[in-house]
């Protein structure tokens, strides 16, 4: 069967009433969290992980994907109307979108953002559906050493290559890898780093860690920030619909944003934000009206909004085909798969095609739902902003605690949740990235398992790791990704990196 037949089969699964309900809950929640400043998709999926523990796996994953897509849609609303991005991938939208709203063109700004998100989501989901089988074919020939090399590459790119500081990224990663060692060694049965505490023999629960780092840590950090401005909503005046000229100026940025955002989302540690910045720079360079940029150019809203949605679909390519998370939300979604005993990767396409293709197809349905939900209900979404912020933060803390205790009723688990939550807050306070610690905890055991398998096959010969061309290439790229930024800093050529490092100190 080809990708098209699988997609059709997936559409049949995703169109079941229960799956449609899960998708609707996902996109509604996603849009709500996208609208609320400070709450992103990563936090919401983390909060829902323990709650969905006993639900249907396919439905829960469809809901998570809906939240991811919805978050990207919803973030633009507050960017445009309040100059306060709902989540970081919509920051660029605020630059031109809010200027448009202040000029009384809030309607077309919201429309180009919503339609651009729909177009990008549609194209990117189809790209995901048609690319995934080819990547799965390549990945099926991967052995333990290739998988180990792939994970080393993911570790380096997530922690050291693209962040502000390689040292901070690597510190966060190694903290995650160290926590991943806690518990009974699956190969020898020996207890590691459990310090005689029986609760630690099972290891650190990924769900608890994800909720602590992304929900508790983030809520504490946002609540602790001093500069809490009172947001003033710019009313949407005039028609919400776009004029002929708006359409003419928007369609090319939508397509360019899609083709910039999709591969960047698929890159390890790419993140949706990079695509939005690149899209803005590209649109400004290519625009026939560059003078309008900074004063409300529609291209500056259309391109970045398409880029951030395409990036969400791009992130699902390595997650579903290789089991590699390239963003914080993807890392938590991976934890979501694991809590149902599923391991994303090429084998999942063979062992559970109904779930994978149902999930991919549900994205198409979620995308259509989002278009319908977003534009007509803008008034409702904006009303969400009247929820007092202390209630919001207290609600997140309460929900996180109840969810974790519900899934794992133990005071020790609660202690770990709060302990890691405070660690997440302190890490944010001192500029340590959060994604590497979670990726280290999730991928660490898998990397260890693959390394030990490779070494067992080669009877302890380490050179086996570089004897396969694929593994050697991946390890070579990982080494370059680690070393090149360091050399650039040392030689003074990476002035930007050095300047950033200086700013941090």
């Amino acid at each position, binding site marked *: 069967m080809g990708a098209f037949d699988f997609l059709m089969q997936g559409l049949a699964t995703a169109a079941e009433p229960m799956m449609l309900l899960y998708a609707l809950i996902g996109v509604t929640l996603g849009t709500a969290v996208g609208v609320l400043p400070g709450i992103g998709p990563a936090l919401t999926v983390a909060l829902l992980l323990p709650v969905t523990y006993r639900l249907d796996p396919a439905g829960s994953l469809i809901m998570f994907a809906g939240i991811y897509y919805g978050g990207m849609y919803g973030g633009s609303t507050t960017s445009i109307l309040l100059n306060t991005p709902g989540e970081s991938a919509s920051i*660029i939208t605020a630059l031109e979108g809010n200027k448009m709203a202040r000029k009384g063109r809030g309607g077309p700004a919201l429309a180009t953002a919503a339609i651009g998100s729909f177009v990008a989501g549609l194209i990117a989901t189809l790209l995901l559906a048609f690319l995934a089988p080819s990547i799965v074919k390549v990945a099926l020939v991967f052995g333990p050493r290739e998988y180990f090399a792939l994970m080393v590459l993911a570790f380096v790119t997530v922690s050291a290559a*693209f962040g*502000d500081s390689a040292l901070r990224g690597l510190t966060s990663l190694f903290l995650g890898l160290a926590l991943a060692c806690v518990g009974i060694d699956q190969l020898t049965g020996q207890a590691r780093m459990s310090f005689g505490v029986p609760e630690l023999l099972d290891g650190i629960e990924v769900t608890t860690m994800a909720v602590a780092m992304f929900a508790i840590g983030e809520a504490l950090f946002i609540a602790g920030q001093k500069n809490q401005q009172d947001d003033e909503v710019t009313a949407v005046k005039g028609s919400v619909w776009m004029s002929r000229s708006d359409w003419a100026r928007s369609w090319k940025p939508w397509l360019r944003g899609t083709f910039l955002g999709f591969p960047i989302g698929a890159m390890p540690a790419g993140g949706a934000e*990079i695509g*939005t910045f690149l899209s*803005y720079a590209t649109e400004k360079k290519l625009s026939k009206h560059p003078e309008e940029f900074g004063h409300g150019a529609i291209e500056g809203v259309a391109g970045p909004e398409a880029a951030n949605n395409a990036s969400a679909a791009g992130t699902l390519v390595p997650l579903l085909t290789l089991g590699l998370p390239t963003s914080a939300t993807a890392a938590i979604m991976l934890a979501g798969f694991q809590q149902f005993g599923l391991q994303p990767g090429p084998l999942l396409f063979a062992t559970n095609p109904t779930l994978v293709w149902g999930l991919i197809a549900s994205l198409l349905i979620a995308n259509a739902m989002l278009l319908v939900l977003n534009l007509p209900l803008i008034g409702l979404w904006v009303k969400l902003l009247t929820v007092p912020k202390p209630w919001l933060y207290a609600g997140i803390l309460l929900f996180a605690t109840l969810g974790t205790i519900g899934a794992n009723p133990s005071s020790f688990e609660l202690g770990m949740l709060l302990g890691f939550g405070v660690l997440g807050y302190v890490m944010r306070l001192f500029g340590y990235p959060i994604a590497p610690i979670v990726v280290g905890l999730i991928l660490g055991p898998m990397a260890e398992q693959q390394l030990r398998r490779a070494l067992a096959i080669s009877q302890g010969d380490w050179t086996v790791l570089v004897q396969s061309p694929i593994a050697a290439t991946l390890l070579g790229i990982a080494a370059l990704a680690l070393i090149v930024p360091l050399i650039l800093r040392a030689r003074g050529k990476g002035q930007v990196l050095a300047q950033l490092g200086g700013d941090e100190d």
Partner: protein
Amino acid sequence: MTVLHSIRQAFSTLRAAIHAASAVEMHRVPTARDLNKLGIDKAAFQRIHL
């Protein structure tokens, strides 16, 4: 020469985008140099409630 220049420009824009994205993820304003490279006015960017 022009091709080489374009490639260099593309890479420096990508690098600026990566650094700017990394800064906003940590709730910080990106450096003026990165914003300038991306065609963004720093004053306008600072008005966004990050």
